[in-house]
């Protein structure tokens, strides 16, 4: 589970807060109930004690103390009712004390002889007694102390049950609430997941697509609408720049035609001095390079626009590589670079052979260009499960690590002056990249300065090829 997801975090917070609130509520309930119940019981004891003091003791006298005991027994039967009753004279002599209760809630013998009056809870070993004491005056003026108590056990039993209910109920409630919260949050966040999924699918090639809009009237609807507006603006700007490149390369063609035509007719005039001819030639070379750049830009803008290729068919990439290498071998021989072609036969792919050939031509041309005399260039086409892999490896000058991420960018040159001398405008690899994208192929480069580079192209094999190979 993704612990950083909004869903997880929301539910965790929710569960935490809920637990704290429930625990606090349970504690408050428990303690206030205990206090209320104890106070209530003590109040009862005190009332009963006053009753004894006001009725029985007030009518009694020193001489009738024994009759008092019998009267108390018959009126209150403390043993049966789990009560504790004790009458003490002012000098501390116990006049009456109830016996052990039948319920066994406490041991009366253990109840200490306490001084003073009031209500309190007394701990007696493993049980406790809620005891109230009041003063009483007999008819002959002698002073007594009346103590009435009851076992705290029923009260404690009640509280124990409450505690049990809380202990079981709280986790269950929290679990149910968390599960509900999880479902709710997921339902609320589900559109977010769909928006994210769709957003990942949208690239510069399908900018006309839009994110799903949830008509919920909430923040998510606003978010998806705003994102769609953003995509629209992106689309406008990208379309604008593509259109600009297409228009610019288009508009440059006519002046280039004129420049080229006029200069060519001048250059072929044999009456010119050698110097003038050289100058004209130099200008013409630049015009030609300009024309090549315009052509490359136009080719790129066409590839960007996703122009459907009319020559889409199934062919053997290994064979194409071999013939291309053969056609370029003289170029390598001329530089004293050895080009070796090493391929598995019958690596069938689908695509435009002319464009993929251009990829091979550009890669080989680069490799030969940047490999010093005596160096080696290796071209290989191999089959991997589901993929055709074309590699062009050279042991040339290599590409610095900081330049590697940029080699497929337009107009990028590793070293301006050197590359410029070698010709080209830094568009060759950009075209390679665009053609690869159009064929659903990946291209990557691995390089070490001074040891050479490897360009590796991975293209899905034509479907159903396994049956043939």
């Amino acid at each position: 589970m993704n612990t950083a997801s909004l869903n997880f975090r929301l539910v965790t917070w929710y569960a935490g807060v809920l637990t704290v609130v429930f625990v606090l509520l349970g504690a408050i309930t428990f303690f206030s109930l205990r206090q209320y119940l104890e106070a209530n019981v003590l109040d009862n004891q005190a009332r009963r004690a006053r009753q004894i003091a006001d009725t029985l003791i007030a009518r009694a006298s020193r001489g009738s103390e024994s009759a008092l005991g019998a009267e108390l027994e018959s009126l209150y039967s403390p043993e049966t009712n789990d009560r504790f009753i004790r009458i003490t004279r002012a000098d501390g002599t116990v006049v009456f004390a109830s016996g052990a209760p039948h319920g066994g809630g406490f041991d009366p013998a253990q109840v200490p002889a306490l001084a003073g009056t009031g209500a309190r809870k007394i701990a007696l070993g493993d049980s406790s007694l809620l005891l109230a004491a009041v003063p009483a005056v007999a008819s002959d003026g002698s002073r007594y102390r009346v103590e009435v108590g009851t076992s705290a056990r029923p009260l404690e039993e009640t509280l124990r049950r409450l505690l049990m209910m809380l202990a079981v109920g709280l986790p269950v409630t929290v679990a149910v609430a968390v599960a509900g919260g999880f479902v709710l949050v997921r339902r609320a966040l589900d559109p977010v997941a769909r928006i994210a999924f769709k957003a990942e699918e949208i690239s510069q090639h399908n900018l006309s697509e839009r994110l799903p809009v949830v008509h919920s009237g909430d923040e998510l609807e606003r978010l998806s609408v705003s994102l769609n507006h953003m995509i629209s603006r992106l689309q406008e700007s990208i379309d604008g720049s593509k259109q600009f490149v297409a228009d610019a390369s288009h508009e440059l063609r006519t002046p280039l035609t004129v420049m080229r035509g006029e200069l060519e007719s001048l250059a072929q005039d044999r009456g010119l001095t050698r110097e003038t001819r050289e100058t004209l030639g130099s200008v013409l070379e630049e015009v030609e390079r300009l024309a090549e750049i315009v052509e490359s830009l136009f080719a790129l803008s066409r590839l960007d626009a996703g122009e459907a290729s009319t020559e889409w068919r199934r062919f053997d990439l290994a064979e194409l590589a071999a013939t291309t290498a053969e056609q370029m071998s003289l170029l390598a021989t001329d530089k004293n670079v050895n080009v070796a072609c090493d391929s598995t036969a019958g690596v069938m792919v689908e695509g435009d052979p002319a464009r993929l050939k251009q990829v091979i031509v550009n890669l080989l041309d680069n490799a030969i260009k940047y490999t010093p005399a005596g160096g080696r260039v290796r071209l290989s086409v191999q089959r991997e499960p589901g993929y055709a892999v074309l590699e062009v490896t050279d042991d040339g000058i290599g590409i610095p690590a900081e330049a590697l991420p940029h080699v497929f960018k337009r107009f990028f040159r590793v070293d301006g002056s050197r590359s410029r001398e070698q010709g080209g405008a830094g568009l060759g690899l950009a075209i390679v990249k665009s053609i690869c994208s159009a064929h659903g192929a990946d291209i990557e480069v691995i390089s070490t300065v001074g040891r050479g580079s490897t360009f590796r192209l991975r293209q899905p094999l034509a479907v159903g090829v396994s049956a043939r190979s």
Partner: protein
Amino acid sequence: MRLLLVEDEKKVSDLVARALRAESFAVDVADDGAHGWELAQSYEYDLIILDLMLPRLSGEELLRRIRRSNQQVPILVLTARATTEDKVHNFEAGTDDYLTKPFAVAELIMRVKALLRRGPITRSSVLRVGDLEVDRFTKQVRRGGRRIELTAKEYALLEYLAANPGRVFSRTMIIEHVWDQSFEGLTNIVDVYVRHLRSKVDDPFPVKLIRTVRGVGYGLAESAER
């Protein structure tokens, strides 16, 4: 022979008309589509060269009108647009050939001549430039009676140059005719092949036939300076 050139860019039409007139063609120039349509209706032209982007009446519309009036005249289209779709579309509309700007004037002249020769073609199987003989059927090359062994690409290059002696071809044109479009921009391959060709065809002989015009390209001529 009379040619109609419909092109709104004055400098382009001047350049093309001048080059065509130098080849002894009579050239009428129209600078918009409507004017071009008037001229096309008034005369029986041997060939029409048409820019696609024209004011008043578009090149496409002009092309359609000429074809609808059932004229069998060959039409060469000049355009700055070069997508495959456009090409297919225009061939369907009745274009005979196609040139993308920026084109070399030499290329245009060659295409024009090729279109006009479409009728009765009498081409000798052996091309001769000075004492060089290129046999198109046997693919054999002799100079001064001596057999010269060439690789397939070297032969293709030499045959292309020998077919138009005295003309200078740009390296881009050579690439397009001898190699294929995948080699576009790889013009140094032409230099390498020309150098190899020279070592076989020119170096052993006192008279040099392969001509280099810097910035323009290469050609074959009976007396070429290096």
